[in-house]
């Protein structure tokens, strides 16, 4: 019972942590616009968290610059499981206009599994909301998988103990 309750709650209350890895600030503005009265992403339970420890969805915007790469990776490691990574805009996906620059080390896929990519330069708020919503559904599946894995591990332990 609790497994399902927690899983469905996970889909309904995704908290967002936003990392800017050298973005031009366009996507960042759009992400904030998503939380304003006009689009109001809070109706799906979205909330901006202040620290990666509270986050469920990590939103990365910008082409990973060499200065920000290490910081991005460290922050991503600090997010508790289960979590999703959403790449916002074209930059983290392809490098966009910055592609080939000496200081760009993208794309994001090189470092971490990206669950949802919201493309566009910049993506429309509607697209951002859809992306985040999709991420929340993926989050639920991840949570289910995690719970199953835990159960399997427990089952295995008891088997070992019995043997």
């Amino acid at each position, binding site marked *: 019972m609790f497994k399902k309750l927690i899983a469905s709650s996970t889909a309904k209350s995704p908290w967002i942590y936003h990392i800017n890895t050298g973005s031009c600030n366009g996507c960042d503005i759009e992400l904030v616009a998503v939380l304003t009265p006009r689009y109001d992403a809070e109706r799906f339970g979205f909330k901006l968290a202040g620290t*990666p420890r509270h986050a469920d969805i990590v939103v990365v915007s910008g082409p990973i610059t060499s200065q920000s790469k290490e910081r991005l990776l460290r*922050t991503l490691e600090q997010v508790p499981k289960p979590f999703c990574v959403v790449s916002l805009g074209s930059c983290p996906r392809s490098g966009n206009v910055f592609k080939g620059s000496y200081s760009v080390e993208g794309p994001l896929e090189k470092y971490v599994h990206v669950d949802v990519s919201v493309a566009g330069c910049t993506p429309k708020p509607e697209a951002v909301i859809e992306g985040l919503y999709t991420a929340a559904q993926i989050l639920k599946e991840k949570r289910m998988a995690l719970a199953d894995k835990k159960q399997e591990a427990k089952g295995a332990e008891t088997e070992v103990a019995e043997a």
Partner: protein
Amino acid sequence: MMNIMQHFPVIAVMSLFLGAFLVEIFGRKNKIVRNIITMIFVAISFLCIIALIKPVILDGEVISYWLGNWEPVNGYAIGIGYEVDALNLFFAILVVLTFTLSAIYSLRYMEKDDHLGHYYTLFLMLSGGVLGLVLTGDIFNMYVMVEIMTFAAVALTAFRNYKKGALESAFKYLVIGSVGSGFTLTGICLVYMQCHTLNMAQLSSILANHLTPTTILALALIFIGFGVKSFMVPFHTPAADAYTTAPSSISMVFSGMVNKAGVYGMIRLMFVVFMMMDKTAMQILLAAFGTITMFVGVTMALAQHDFKRLLAFHSISQIGYVLAACGLGTALGVSGGLFHAMNHTLFKGLLFLCAGAVYYATGTTNLDKLGGLSKKMPKTAICFLIGAFSISGLPPFNGFVSKWMIYQAAWSKGVETNNFFYVFVTIVAVVVSVMTLASFIKVTQAVFFGQPSEKCENAKEVPLAMRIPMWIMSALCILVGIFYNFINTNLLTPATNAVFNATNYIDKMMGSGYAAAAGVSETTIEPAALSYWDPILWLILFVIILAAVCIAILTGKRTRGEVLVNKTEAVDGKYATFFGGEKSEHSHVSGSDLFWGFKKNWGGYFKFMQGMHSGDVNDYSLYTVIASAVIIIVIFIFIH
């Protein structure tokens, strides 16, 4: 049985003095002999006092002993009498508990110092002085004990004279302490001149209804004298230095029993001997000084950068609680004051021992240089937290119960007398309690939590001999907090009864019927009704908390080594502190940086207080003299 019991008080005191001489003679070179002698005599003293609990507190007897068997002649007491009633014994228990634990702690804590023979000699002298002061029934003997206590304390303050400021603080203590002793002696002379006796029981019956200008002056002088001994503001100035520079085992003794001796003298002389505390002016005087003391103490503590200095100012502040509570002059107030005195002995002793442990492990008590010790010294950290919560008065620790009694007493006194002053006392007491919490949060953050500083890198947990006294104190803090009703009926009520009913005290010493003849009246003291919560509820709650903690620990299993990003690029920062993605580095929010939002608003006050605590002994003497003048004038104007 009774005959043997009679000798116990005097054996308890004498064994300590005897021990002091023997340590000096036999124990100067040999460590083992020295320790054995000290522990034996401390143990004798401890057991003698504990053995007195049954007759004095449970059976309600008063034990008296005439030194040299010089009994009163023609109704005048000539010899020195020792007299133990519930009030004496209450303080005596605190004293023996403190010095026994301190002696155990000293064994390892002081091992790195030289001249330990002198240390133990002075330690035993100090203990004997305080115990004698508490047990004696003779006012001049009391003065002698005060002097022994003061000089041993001064010498011990300067014991680590290689430390910066040790000699200076000893000098300050010496000067201010001597001023206090001088006042006490003058007061005692005046009393002797007027009453021709030095026995407190007899004085009590003579002074009960006959106040002359001379005895009023004596009252004022003795009030000042014991005010200095209990480090009431503005006589508190040497305390801060002395507690800081003395070894922690001695700081514990200072706050656990030396200033309690002052409180005891105050209660014994003001309530029992002079019987002045039913006068509104005296009540307000004592309560006002108590309130000022608690407030100044705690605000100064908030501004400190040194662990022990901070604790020293808290000692001053907590004594303020005790004095203010006693100044209410009601049974509940005195019970609360005595209870707080007891709790202060427990938690402040514990905190000083923790400070000592920190010093032992790191070699410093500077709050700005410490940090992150809870990982290196987890047991000390737990003890410290227990002490900190107790002193801040969080339920269910012991400090809460006594503070609760003090608030109740102050407020009900205010409502009864329709005097807004007591409401003010209540409010200040509550606010001071919160500030106490604040300054202990500061210590917790600066010393035990956060990230280990350079000084703390190599810190290790202190040895078992030092931890045992800490554990005992911690356990007592919790037990007293839970079984407060037991303490209330068995210790506080008899002691409060002894404070308000001197009849037994007088009759035992001077022959039955003496008190009634002198017109000393008797009042019955009901045990204070304490029912702030139910032990059953507490136990159930405890079980629930325990279950919850177990769940919390079970769910908090760590899964190490799983990093979600690609292994080749991993930076392994999962368990590092979050710095906005930066590499975790040493950055510790130390104590002095905390609470600036509070300090900024109070800038003027703190600047003023800083100016007042100039460290100049001339200034301090001046405050002492001014305050003494004020006290004398107030007492003369308002007491008739």
